[in-house]
């Protein structure tokens, strides 16, 4: 397994020929000792392995701010090993693992365990996200300081899966993390307005007889949290924004100079609630798929930077949790292996974002929001050689059975999507070569 190969071995020397950094003109990228040596006309250094990257886009290694690796506790759905394999195959070199595991990642001990599992697997960096409240119960702050000081160096804290709905609790959390430059990532979902909710509240939910999930349940919480953040002078990150109203509120808050960042999932950039017509729970997700108007506003928001980044919210579930009637099914979709392709379909091929923009939204900004140590998210000589090579001209049908993730609940199954990740390098060591795990 490549993880055990990495431990203690020094990365080799590579010449990546003819790649197009950030979609620009072809150049040769030389990698030596885990660092980018040069980008330009490279003479092959002695002993370099050569990778023919003609026509491939080179992007800095993607950073996912929002992934569920399920370990510890739900290893039937995913493990750190299988999840990070999926991440590497999707072009990611770093993922933030959400805290709703079992036990919950609300102590230094659990976050350290997850961090170590990531290092052992070696497919990408795993940065554990710490819970905001003990057990995600929303009543008592977790030991945020201890988690920040642990080897896992937690900076992002989230009760994702649950909303920190109590206004006082949210205020305290926002204040507390100022001490170590942390950020609270809120899963915005007013619990009372969404009791038993199944699908976006609108024409579709009324027709299908499914309890509606009103947009205001997300927007009201975001508005409150932006105001709180401004009041106490802290930093807020909004998880999986899904409505046009949310985009407007975030735009307004940023316009005021408040420290608010936001993410959007790939599926919310492409899919709408009309897909629920056949009651197939592969389309059941939290927050729910919304309307075409929301999709358009989210794309526009990502294009103009109101939404800072794409985060997959990769949520694997075993077959028995999805092969049921809608009400009984779990919420969530996988996304690591399809993310870049969906972004190409929704944003690049529609002319809304160029590859430099993709690098910014999927690498540079998430690295900054995650407060990752060291310079990440860019391609330049002297920076760590964490990058991904991507064939934007490829096209094929998504087949979840071929995915490295343990779970198969992808809403893109059977869909034709462009693009293919050809190679991924983590600090100079290949994790993916020729579209397969290295």
């Amino acid at each position, binding site marked *: 397994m490549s993880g055990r190969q990495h431990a203690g071995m020094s990365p080799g020397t590579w010449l990546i020929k003819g790649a197009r950094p950030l979609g620009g003109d072809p150049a040769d990228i030389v990698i030596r000792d885990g660092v980018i040596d040069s980008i330009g006309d490279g003479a092959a250094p002695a002993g370099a392995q050569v990778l023919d990257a003609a026509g491939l886009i080179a992007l800095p290694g993607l950073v996912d701010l929002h992934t569920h690796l399920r370990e510890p506790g739900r290893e039937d759905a995913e493990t750190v090993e299988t999840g990070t394999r999926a991440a590497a195959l999707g072009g990611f070199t770093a993922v933030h693992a959400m805290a709703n595991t079992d036990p919950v990642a609300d102590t230094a001990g659990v976050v350290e365990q997850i961090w170590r599992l990531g290092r052992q697997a070696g497919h990408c960096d795993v940065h554990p996200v710490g819970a905001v409240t003990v057990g995600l119960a929303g009543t008592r702050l977790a030991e945020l300081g201890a988690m920040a000081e642990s080897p896992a160096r937690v900076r992002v804290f989230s009760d994702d899966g649950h909303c920190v709905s109590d206004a006082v609790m949210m205020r305290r959390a926002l204040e507390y993390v100022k001490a170590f430059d942390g950020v609270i990532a809120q899963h915005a979902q007013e619990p009372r307005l969404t009791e038993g909710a199944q699908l976006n509240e609108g024409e579709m939910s*009324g*027709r*299908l*007889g499914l309890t509606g999930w009103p947009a205001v349940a997300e927007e009201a919480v975001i508005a409150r949290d932006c105001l709180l953040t401004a009041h106490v002078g802290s930093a807020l990150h909004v998880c999986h924004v899904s409505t046009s109203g949310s985009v407007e509120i975030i735009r307004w808050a940023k316009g005021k100079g408040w420290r608010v960042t936001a993410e959007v999932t790939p599926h919310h950039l492409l899919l709408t609630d009309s897909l629920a017509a056949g009651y197939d729970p592969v389309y059941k997700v939290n927050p729910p798929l919304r309307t075409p108007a929301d999709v358009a506003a989210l794309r526009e928001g990502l294009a103009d930077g109101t939404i800072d980044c794409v985060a997959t919210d990769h949520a694997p579930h075993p077959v028995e949790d999805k092969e049921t*009637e809608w009400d009984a099914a779990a919420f969530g979709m996988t996304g690591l292996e399809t993310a870049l392709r969906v972004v190409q379909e929704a944003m690049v091929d529609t002319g809304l974002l160029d590859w430099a923009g993709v690098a910014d939204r999927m690498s540079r900004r998430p690295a900054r929001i995650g407060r990752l140590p060291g310079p990440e998210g860019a391609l330049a000589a002297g920076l760590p050689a964490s990058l991904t090579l991507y064939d934007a001209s490829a096209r094929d049908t998504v087949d979840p059975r071929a995915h490295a993730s343990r779970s198969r609940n992808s809403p893109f199954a059977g869909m034709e999507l462009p693009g293919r990740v050809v190679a991924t390098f983590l600090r100079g060591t290949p994790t993916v070569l020729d579209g397969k795990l290295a």
Partner: protein
Amino acid sequence: MNRHLISAADLSRDDALLILDTADELARMADRPIKKLPTLRGRTVVNLFFEDSTRTRISFEAAAKRLSADVINFSAKGSSVAKGESLKDTALTLEAMGADAVVIRHSASGAPHRLAGWVRGTVVNAGDGAHEHPTQALLDAFTIRRKFGRPGGEALDGLRVTIVGDVLHSRVARSNVLLLNTLGAEVTLVAPPTLLPVAVGAWPCSVGYDFDAVIPKTDVVMMLRVQQERMKAAYFPSVREYSRRYGLDGTRMAQLPEHAIVMHPGPMNRGVEIAAEVADSPRSTIVEQVANGVSVRMAVLYLLLGGAEAQA
């Protein structure tokens, strides 16, 4: 017709009329000494009821037996489902038993859709969550047609039907709005705003909050059951206020046009949405609706199962 009957939207105007006309003929069986037809002999119909409903289940059972089908009743309580068996595994068991048709009632909207993907037989929706109850809408349309003396082959064009009550949670309301519209009736929904879906404006019907305004201008009043638990979730403040504003009592009944009829899918909350004197009055079709249910369900089972297998 489709292979399955899951939504009233599955039925075209011609399909619906065919069912009603067939039910007309089958209703005459009630006068015969032998109330049985050999048509579905050798076919197996399974009643898969995850929600308690003696009335509907018995109606489907009677319909299937009068067509000489074999009937197997499966109710969720005390079954393997209560012990956690999934809907899918239950479906596979039914497949193994060779069910030609499965009549399913489930508390989750969309359960019949899912079932149809797992069984080869015909799926008939006997009520799924808040989604639909197409055979109820059919027997309601059948009752209306008979009461207004429309002959076979004719639909409900021009008749004004008002549906009153908890539309938000009602599968009967959804199926009726669709089917009555297909058959040419003019439908009006009356309810407090809390009990109407947010996007009801897109439905093929009118909507109003004032029951008294609509009463003198309607040919049919269909009262929906209102559950008292809704009060706790703040859908309305009290039973008394609900009754006063949206209940059909003797005073309101007197304001109805002379020919108008009163319907209710049952079970009734006497004194809440409908007064006892109304339920028992000659305008009320509540008892006939039950009898008509068997004829209509016989027609549905015959048309879905009685001929060659339709292409899905």
